[in-house]
């Protein structure tokens, strides 16, 4: 089941990406409306991260195209922001939290010139939004995993974009950080930003997102969570794994008959 939207923030059109002749994603076609907090879910190796990387032009595309606010990426780069997986960089790098956040202010224009006072103010403000203002000058290796993740999110915020693509921002962090990040993303959504998050945890997906994209190399479903989050589509995405399915059925039952307290 795929629900399309007329004026999408992000349009993925018939996209196929292959690594070494093996398709990572196959003929994916979906749209994400503006102003939603969306989640991409699916089993390991389903191609969730690949969709984001293809959207950001980081992997070569075999066929299909991506449009952001109706334009190719190169024309709307300053409106798009990407948060890579935390493990993708070396956190022993000699840099402080604020150094990393300031990278969000780099661009073709400012790469050769000095950053302005306003760039520093914006970066500091973004650190405040993720509650790391007291850690601005802390070396990044000395931050916890959750704090490092928040530094990455602050860097994306510093770009002041309209759409944010985040690769596993909830991976390997504690519950308190997870809640803080979720609250931040919800606030951004309420301000009209569009956010698309790759998420590994099925249990929390329904709770966190308004729009869900289900993936298993092919596209299984895309739409508002209430229309696509059901046992049949989940079974299609995750394969006929009985334990998983029965757990899902339980979850769904709880939703249909909420426990009265």
């Amino acid at each position, binding site marked *: 089941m795929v629900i399309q939207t007329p004026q999408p923030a992000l349009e993925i059109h018939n996209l196929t990406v292959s690594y*070494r002749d093996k398709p990572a994603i196959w003929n994916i076609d979906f749209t994400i409306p503006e102003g939603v907090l969306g989640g991409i879910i699916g089993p390991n190796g389903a191609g969730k991260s690949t969709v984001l990387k293809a959207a*950001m*032009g*980081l992997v070569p595309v075999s066929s299909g195209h991506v449009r952001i606010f109706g334009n190719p990426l*190169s024309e709307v*780069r300053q409106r*798009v*922001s*990407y948060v*890579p997986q935390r493990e*993708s*960089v*070396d956190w022993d*790098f*000699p*840099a*402080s939290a604020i*150094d*990393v956040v300031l*990278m969000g202010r*780099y*661009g*073709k224009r*400012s*790469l*050769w010139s000095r*950053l302005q006072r306003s760039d520093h103010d914006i970066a500091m403000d973004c650190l405040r939004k993720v509650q790391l203002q007291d850690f601005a000058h802390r*070396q990044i*290796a*000395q931050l*916890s995993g959750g704090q490092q993740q928040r530094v990455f999110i602050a*860097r994306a915020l510093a*770009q002041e974009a309209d759409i944010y693509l985040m690769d596993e921002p909830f991976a390997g962090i504690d519950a308190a950080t997870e809640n803080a990040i979720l609250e931040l993303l919800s606030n951004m959504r309420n301000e009209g930003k569009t956010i698309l998050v790759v998420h590994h945890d099925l249990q929390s997906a329904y709770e966190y997102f308004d729009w869900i994209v289900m993936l298993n190399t092919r596209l299984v479903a895309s739409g508002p969570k209430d229309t696509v989050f059901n046992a049949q589509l989940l079974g299609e995405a995750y394969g006929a794994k009985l334990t998983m399915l029965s757990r899902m059925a339980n979850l769904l039952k709880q939703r249909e008959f909420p426990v009265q307290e």
Partner: protein
Amino acid sequence: MDAFWIILTGSLTAACCGILGCFLLLRRLSLLGDAVSHAVLPGIFIAYWLSGSRSSWAVVLGAGAFGMLCTLLIEFLTRKARLQSDAATGLVFTLLFAIGVILIAAFAGQIDLDQDCVLYGEIAYVPLDIWLTEGGTNLGPRAVWTGGVLLLGIAALVAAGYKGLFITTFDAEYAATLGISTAFWHYALMGAVSLTTVVSFESVGAVLVVAFLIAPAATAYLLTDNLKAMLCLSVLFGILAATGGYYLAVWLDGSIAGAMASAMGILFVLVLLWSWYAPVLRQKRWVADL
């Protein structure tokens, strides 16, 4: 005066290598610096053979071209032949270096370039190669001028392109999403490494330049968690090693280049021990382990 020129030449080489070495180390490309520094050998020979002089721009261009060829070949083998990058590196630079050695051996009688000079350098001869103007004014050794110009060039590249080098070194993927060309910065860095190698090959030789590319940066990395401080410390350690190495060589009456590289190694060990036992740093490590 000779001592001054020799130490100055060594220090200029060490400073160039020290700056570039920091970025190589952080990109986990230290051995690519090693590879490039060897692979320029056929380029040096061919340019030397064609132009007939060692201190000409032709040599710089020839070496630069082979340095770039080396990085391109490694990238080609990694991407297209799907070889591991370390295997590709080893394959390419040994081949190019071997070709250079064969060429030099074959034409040894015809040009003033020999294996010993290329492999080990001879910094002691630096004061003999004086740049005289047409009017006969003594402007000092040529090596000091080339080294000085190169250091200025590298300092200018790093100062103006600091943000580009910083972001593409830390997180190349993210830099690409901002529209920054990661290939441009990669090749700018590799081009600078190639040029540095040509200048260094006259003074410390193709083998020992690797010590200058890696050791000062590695020593600085132990001591700081700020990239700018790391660059400064790396240059400082390079100069210390060049100076200390010269006097070590005088004392031992041995190879100056060898003594400079050894001094660098000794400096690294001292700093390593100090970083293990100094209380301030121990506390830093303890915080980092939390």
